[in-house]
Each structure stands twice: as C-alpha cells, then as structure tokens.
C-alpha cells in the first residue's frame, strides 16, 4: 500500500526528466522517533548551590543536606504522579528513623502513599504548614512544600546511591533537573 502511495506522488519526487518521470524513488526509512525529552529547565533556579546539593532517591523523595541537617521532600515528578495532595502526615519531632523507614504518608485521589526516609537520622523539625495546607506539596515541592528535617549523627555516604536524577525513572525516561 505504501508503494501505491509512492506511485501517486512519484512524479513529484522524481527528477524533472521525461525518461525518469515514473521512476519511483524510495523514500529513506523514517528516523526512529527520539525519546520524548522534557525541557531541561522548568523553573529558574533560585539557588544553584541548593540545586547541586539536592539528591533524589528511587522513590522520588529528595534530600538536601547542609551542616549535618537534611531537608526532605518529594520530587516534582512524584507530586504530579500523585495528583492533588489532600493530607500529609509527618513524624513527631525527635523520632529516630533508619534509612527506608516509613516516615509519613500522603493522601491524594483517594490513595494513601507512604514516604520513606532517604537516610538514617533524627527528626529535628517538620513543616507544620503542611498539616493545614497539604497542597503546598503540589505547588512548591522543593520550597514551601518540603516536609521534614533530619539530623545525622553518623557519617553518611550519599554519592553512590543517591545521585542527581538523570534518565533513571521507572515510569519513563526523562531529564528532571528541577530548580
């Protein structure tokens, strides 16, 4: 069927020469489609130092560490995948968490999903604004919607496991270099 289509457009494609007017020039095969790429920068970076310190887990939590205190939240990818967050429960201040412990839960679209601690530490503070305004997680997941603060008593290693997110999402391939 493609050849019949080519035959119809053949005279247009063929070089302008009476001898070759019916020569069917095969079209090159179409290039395979490139994987969809989200534009690299969705927002202006307010602080490139903070951006460089933010690390992401495979569960789409992020943590950025300064002076032994880690700030934890969920990524833009996660908040979009969840939908409107209607409830956020966070641990008590003073709770000691091990890496991968459940540290809270979010509810959205009638779905409750757990949050897992990216590292071991003690909760020094939580974002109390999220109790009354859980939608901050959607609106500003890296600033006003950040969730909790952990202090680390021990040395920690972040380089190998938790790297800047780059084409490693289990949903689909994309570059998430959010500010």
């Amino acid at each position, binding site marked *: 069927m493609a050849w019949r289509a080519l035959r119809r457009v053949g005279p247009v494609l063929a070089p302008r020469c009476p001898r070759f007017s019916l020569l069917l020039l095969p079209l090159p095969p179409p290039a395979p489609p490139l994987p969809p790429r989200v534009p690299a920068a969705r927002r202006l970076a307010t602080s490139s130092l903070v951006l460089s310190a933010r690390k992401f887990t495979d569960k789409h939590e992020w943590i950025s560490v300064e002076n032994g205190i880690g700030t934890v939240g969920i990524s833009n990818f996660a908040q979009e995948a969840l939908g409107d967050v209607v409830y956020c429960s966070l641990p008590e201040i003073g709770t000691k968490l091990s890496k991968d412990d459940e540290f809270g839960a979010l509810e959205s679209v009638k779905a*409750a999903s757990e949050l897992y601690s990216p590292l071991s530490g003690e909760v020094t503070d939580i974002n109390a604004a999220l109790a009354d305004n859980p939608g901050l997680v959607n609106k500003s997941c890296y600033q006003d919607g950040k969730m909790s603060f952990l202090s680390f008593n021990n040395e920690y290693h972040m380089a190998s496991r938790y790297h800047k997110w780059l084409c490693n999402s*289990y949903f689909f391939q994309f570059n998430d270099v959010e500010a």
Partner: protein
Amino acid sequence: MSRGPVRVLRLGLRPYAEALRAQERCVEAARAARLPVPVPGESVVLSEPAEPVYAWGLRGGPEAEAAARLRRRGAGLAAVRRGGRITFHGPGQLLVFPVLDLRRRRLPLRGYVEALETLVLRFCRRFGLPAARALPPPFTGVWMGDSKLCAIGVHCGNHITSHGLALNCCTDLTWFDHIVPCGLEGKGVTSLSRELGRHITVDHVLEPFLDSFQEVFDCTLVFSEDPGD
C-alpha cells in the same frame, strides 16, 4: 508487559478483618516476588464482608461519641491505612483488593486510581448501567447521578497497591445513613440492585467483574486458594 498472571482469591463471605489479613499475605507475596522470573506476585482479593463494619482511612475517623453510637448499632469499626474517608462495608457488597506492582506496570498512582474507575465503568456498561460515571477528585468513585455506587480507597507502599474498591450489589443502604460517606455532604449512595430494580448478589457480578478486570489491567487470571502458592 502484557498478559502477566494475576492470582485471584475469592474469599466469599468473610469478616472484613479476614479479608484484610488475606490482603496482607498477598502484599508480602508481591514484595517477595520482585524477581526477573514471571511468578504471579500480583493478586486480587475478592470478598463480601460477613458483618457490618465502618472503616476509615488516613485522615481519621469518627469522634469517640460518634464511634460509640455506631458500635451500638452493631457495627465494627476499623481504621485502615488507605485513602478516602469513612465508609461502610457489609453483606451484599463486593470488596476488591487488587495487589498490583505499579512499578512493573509503569503506572503512576493517579493512573492506577483512574484504571480502577475505568474498570468499574466497564463492568457497569457490561451489566446494563451505561449511565454510570466517574467524577474528578474529591468525588473519586463511580456514581449514578448524585449517588455513589462504588467507593474507591487505595494504599500504595513500595509501589505495591492494597485496598481498592467497594461495589454495592445488594448492600443494606440504611447503614450509610449514620455517617457522611467519604465526608461528602449532600450525596447519596446506591447499589446495583436499586439501580437495576432486581436483586443482584455478589455472586452475580463476579464473572463480569473479573472479565472487566482482565481487560483493564491486561492480565491473565489464575484462580487460587492461597496467596502463598
């Protein structure tokens, strides 16, 4: 990924707590089955609550006084780790707990909830209720007009889902009068029996429901008694 196996556990008439325990075993099996080989780590637990129970999700349940009143009416109370507010489960209702691996399915949580709604809508069309519709949040669920036919409330941990949906077949709807279902004032509840004008039991709906499940979640159903095998 297509046509992967999903184990079906048909519990029949069992107390709600037993269905929750079977679900837990399925969740453990799903977590353990994260292997390259295609073992049926996913399952779906189907049951009909044997006794009336009011269950609520993460956002909390009734105050002590309201809880005591509900208990006096003969219902159990259960706080469960799922989305959604208070609702009723009891005889005549089909409880469906799909335990699926969203990471393997490459499905975001929001997409999974939409798939559950699609599943129920497809079942309703099959069953003679083409007017059923799903509404956007906060009215997630399947409705006939202003009355909810099927409630949805799920949980997702480590990308494994649990809890699911409750479809009223011939549920005694007066149990819902004592609560504000899902915290939505001014909305009612309905059942398949009420909408179709004839008595529909849970057994009547199992086959068409599982057919729709197979289509929407693109899987092969494997019937089994035990989540561990």
